[in-house]
């Protein structure tokens, strides 16, 4: 539950495709994040509701990755707040937020190259104990049968696409309430991109809220309920995915339309 009673008038109410959207689970209010002196996020305000797929789009350097890092606790805002399920988590370290239910599959896969596929998945379940972990491994293997075949292989020896599958599978092992995905389709073949987006839908249908960062705005807006367009550390547009996809400015800037 949000319990915050703050309504941001600039934002459209959620019109989720699957109608499952509920309470606000994640809320950023006027977040400013810095890298030293570099002012990367200059007042980001956004919210994600339970059951939604929300996408962040924007050109290189817009601040998408920084936004995800600020949510997952790898970075902390210098001003503004991040609320997760009604609690201020602006300064909670990343390793604690995993326990609370935020799982972040970072940009560039970042799998552990010397650990086996199985060990990578076990790392994903680091915060958890008990027998369900094995069931989760089975679940990830059913989503990505390729990983099952390679479970004993070192992560670093997987192909790029397989590493991406492993990165997503590993993030799922935490059984997150909110899954942050940073460019999951980067560098994948068209077939694999389709597959990854299919899996994102599937994960969402099984009850995981998804915040998706994508260069591939076309695909992202197809799968998402709502979207935010970022530019130089600010939200310049917030709307339903369908409206964004129809917006001429968005089409020109991010969907490659002339």
């Amino acid at each position, binding site marked *: 539950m949000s319990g915050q009673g703050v309504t941001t008038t600039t934002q459209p109410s959620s019109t989720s495709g699957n109608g499952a959207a509920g309470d606000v689970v994640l809320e950023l209010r006027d977040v400013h994040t810095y890298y030293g002196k570099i002012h990367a996020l200059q007042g980001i305000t956004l919210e994600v509701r339970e059951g939604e797929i929300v996408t962040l789009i924007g050109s290189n350097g817009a601040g998408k990755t920084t936004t995800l890092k600020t949510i*997952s*606790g*790898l970075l902390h805002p210098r001003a503004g707040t991040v609320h997760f399920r009604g609690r201020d988590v602006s300064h909670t*370290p*990343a*390793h*604690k937020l*995993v*326990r609370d239910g935020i*799982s*972040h599959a*970072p940009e560039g896969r*970042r*799998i*552990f*190259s*010397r*650990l086996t596929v199985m*060990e990578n998945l*076990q*790392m*994903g379940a*680091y*915060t958890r104990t008990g027998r369900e972990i094995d069931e989760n491994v089975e679940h990830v293997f059913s989503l990505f049968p390729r990983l099952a*075949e390679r479970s004993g292989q070192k992560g*670093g020896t997987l192909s790029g696409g397989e590493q991406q599958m492993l990165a997503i599978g*590993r*993030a799922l092992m*935490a059984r997150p309430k909110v899954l942050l995905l940073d460019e999951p389709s980067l560098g994948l073949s068209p*077939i694999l991109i389709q597959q990854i987006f299919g899996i994102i839908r599937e994960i969402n249908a099984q009850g995981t809220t998804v915040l998706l960062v994508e260069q591939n705005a076309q695909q992202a807006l197809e799968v998402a309920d709502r979207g935010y367009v970022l530019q130089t550390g600010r939200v310049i547009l917030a709307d339903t995915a369908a409206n964004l996809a129809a917006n001429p400015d968005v089409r020109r800037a991010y969907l490659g339309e002339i």
Partner: protein
Amino acid sequence: MTTTTTVLSARPSFVETFQRLRLGPYLFVLGVAAIDYVVIGPNQFVNALTIGAIYALVALGYTMVYGIIELINFAHGDVFMVGAFTSMFVLTQALGQDGPIDSPGMLAVVLFINFTITMIALGILGAAIERFAYRPLRHAPRLAPLITAIGVSFILQNIIQIIYGPSPINTPQVIDPAARVEIGGVSIGVVNIFTIVTAVLLMIALQMLVSRTKIGRAMRSTASDRDAAQLMGVDINRTIAITFFIGSALAGAAGVVQGLYFGNIQFTLGFQAGLKAFTAAVLGGIGNITGAALGGFVIGFVEVTAGALGFFVWGQAAVFAVLIITLVFRPSGLLGQQLGERT
């Protein structure tokens, strides 16, 4: 368009499996050791194994710390030295010992208590050094913690020098140094066997911990990618502290056996031994646990062989010559880095 089903994967042949085990460096070291056995004879061979075991235990701490935070912990040799003094303190002050213990039962109890207390005390010392000297500098330029490590090294030496003075002092050899057993026609000191067996058991335990347990996985993933490990829920500070604890506890164990084997200790002990153990870690491939163990034994052999052949004064030079030659042919050491590979 082709379908992307599994391509028939051929089972790896025996030769491939063998190559994948990468036994080359081990076989090489074994071969050299065998030749060395003929050259220096059984007594010196056992001596080399014993000294090598001590270097190996100390080298593990260098390599673990380097593997996880890429810091060459120059104070680690002195942590080993403090271990030797702690062991002496426990034996004399806490357990009231002053020489060989005859009853095997009593000896076992004394050794057990001594190892336990010394290792825990040194583990705490190592974790405290990390907490107060290195952690505040985690994001500082790399030179800063390095200089700090040298400072910590001086502090440890000075503390021991103030307490116990500058000269070598005796430490009880609770395992009778004269006790020997006959194995395959060769008479071997009991204390040698004890040292080697203890070191090997500790190395196996460490290897199991790192490769099989959850904390081991946390250590390896922290070494490999700190941010990603955090995103899995790993508490980086805790994991690094545990790494220091374990590495320093092993140095403590090395300090115990050092005292048992040589019978006297001095505050400068850590500098020499630390340098050689560090060399062992680099030789084996810094960051690589098995490599450090292997490197420790290699250094033991080089040093003892140089002495046995009458080049005792050249012992140090020989150690570094072997290091340089190895690094010329294998720049990342005998086994290469392994604890976690940076991507």
